């Protein structure tokens, strides 16, 4: 699913340079990424998502050479192939839960909101236990409910890859487990690969594989 080699990225204003010699994730794998703050975990997710372009190296995601894509091409690729789950949920406060789930279709390049998408959103909401909360706005939802909505949003476009950045960071211990189980179960259902950055070592046994970013950088 993800193949990277000799990957280098430096922020334009300097100060931080990411260097990854080799990095790969197989299709359907659930990979956890750990490491101290400031080591470039989120930067790696941004590169994989096409939000940033590497200065050097090769990067293939779902068989597509990310370095060969134009800006618009990366946006279209991202909209179709990648789902995001954020630590702060990143829901839109003026839309209800259902419209938040369908939000990628409102803004994503090349996506078309049709009956099938709406049915998929409703089915996802039901499988995540928020079918009765679809008319509620984020302000009226608990943290766990908001993250369930975010998981539905990440999966509604049937992406090949889910990128989760501290997805359980704002949740209490009981809810963390439930949400991670839910994310993995739905991802498996949609045959999606999961690459998740986390600081929570208690969750690591649940992943198929864990990459320690400190070790990865030492190798570089």
């Amino acid at each position, binding site marked *: 699913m993800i193949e990277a080699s000799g990957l280098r990225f430096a922020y334009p204003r300097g100060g931080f340079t990411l260097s990854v010699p080799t990095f790969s994730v197989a299709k359907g794998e659930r990979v956890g990424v750990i490491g101290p703050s400031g080591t470039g975990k989120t930067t790696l997710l941004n590169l994989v998502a096409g939000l940033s372009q590497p200065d050097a190296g090769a990067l293939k995601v779902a068989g597509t050479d990310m370095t060969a894509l134009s800006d618009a091409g990366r946006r279209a690729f991202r*909209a179709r192939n990648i789902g995001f789950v954020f630590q702060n949920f990143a829901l839109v406060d003026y839309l209800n839960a259902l419209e938040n789930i369908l939000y990628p279709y*409102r803004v994503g*390049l090349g996506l078309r909101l049709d009956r099938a998408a709406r049915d998929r959103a409703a089915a996802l909401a039901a499988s995540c236990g928020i079918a009765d909360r679809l008319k509620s706005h984020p302000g009226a939802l608990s943290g766990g409910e908001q993250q369930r909505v975010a998981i539905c949003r990440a999966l509604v476009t049937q992406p090949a890859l889910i990128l989760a950045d501290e997805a359980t960071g704002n949740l209490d211990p009981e809810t963390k487990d439930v949400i991670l189980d839910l994310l993995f179960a739905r991802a498996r259902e949609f045959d999606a690969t999961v690459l998740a950055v986390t600081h929570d070592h208690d969750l690591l046994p649940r992943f198929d594989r864990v990459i320690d970013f400190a070790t990865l950088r030492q190798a570089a």
Partner: protein
Amino acid sequence: MNALFLAFAHLRWTWARSLVLVLVGAVILAVPMVTQTLLRGSEDALTRRAEATPLVLGARGSQLDLVMNAVYFSEDRAQPVTRAAEDAVWDSGLALPIPLHTAFQTNGARIVGTSLDYFDFRGLQIASGRQLAILGEAVLGAAVADRLGLGPGDTVVSAPENLFDLDGVYPLELQITGVLAPTGTPDDEAVFTDVKTAWVIAGIGHGHDDVVTADADGNIVANAAITEFQRITPENIDSFHFHGDAGDYPLSAVLIVPNDTRSATILRGRYLDPENPLQITVPDDVVAGLVDRIFRIAALLDAVTVIIGVAAMGAIALSLYLAWALRSPEMQTARRLGAGRFVILQLALAEIVLFLAGTVVLAAALVFAVTSNGDRLVAWILAL
């Protein structure tokens, strides 16, 4: 469509802010148009009515007050003249004098005491009921009848001039006999009576019980109390009478309809002497000067409106920008989900388009409301 959907959802979510912005925008847009509409309407109405009124005779003093009161029934009250002034015009044989007594009001409408010639002169038609016939009757202007919900068979009571003056003007109940067809002029806002009825309201004429009566034995008995009638009925109308010299009865002004241009010139010449307590004015000349001044002030008001409008639009733009800045986390999420700059621009433009659409629709509704009631509003403004 997606951009419009999101923009509409956001405006609806922040409905109070959106409503205030749309209202402010609509007012900024509508005020200059409404002002221009009313000014143009006022100018037309003022000019049309002034042109249709050849001459006005009144007490020497402010020509503007005289014309505004006699032609538009405004609050401006010139000094009264006497009926002798009207008689003098009549005796000259040069013109038809039409008396006007406009000192009183009822329910916020001016009571205009005049003669039947006034209705012919202005071309006023009775829409329902009948014309004035006897003392104590009134004919309502269309707007007054509509506003008060009154018609033939109802009554109106003249407003007392001073509640605490025992010797002052007392209210008189007027019998409504007819309602005029609407004309879009100050006549719509007036209540017409015969000038003698106006003098009854003024207390110059009155009706009361007999001062002396004869008892069963034919003895003359003086009444212990004399009750004045506050309503003129077929039973008491014969008791109504006027005191004093008829030539001294007051009039607010006299409309003069000259026989021809020569007669008008001769009549005007007779009142040119500055020592003469009376004057004849040409309403068209007076109103032309007034309109000229109004439009000079209106030009200044337009400039002020533009300055305030620019400032308010700046404030609206700042508010929209700040609201947009508050949405930056959402835009960041949208970019991560695959939105390009064009989509982000569409979202911003959609919100501006919806705001402008709301503003234009509301402004158009305001302008339409004013325009469709323009004649009525102008008549009301002129009667102030």
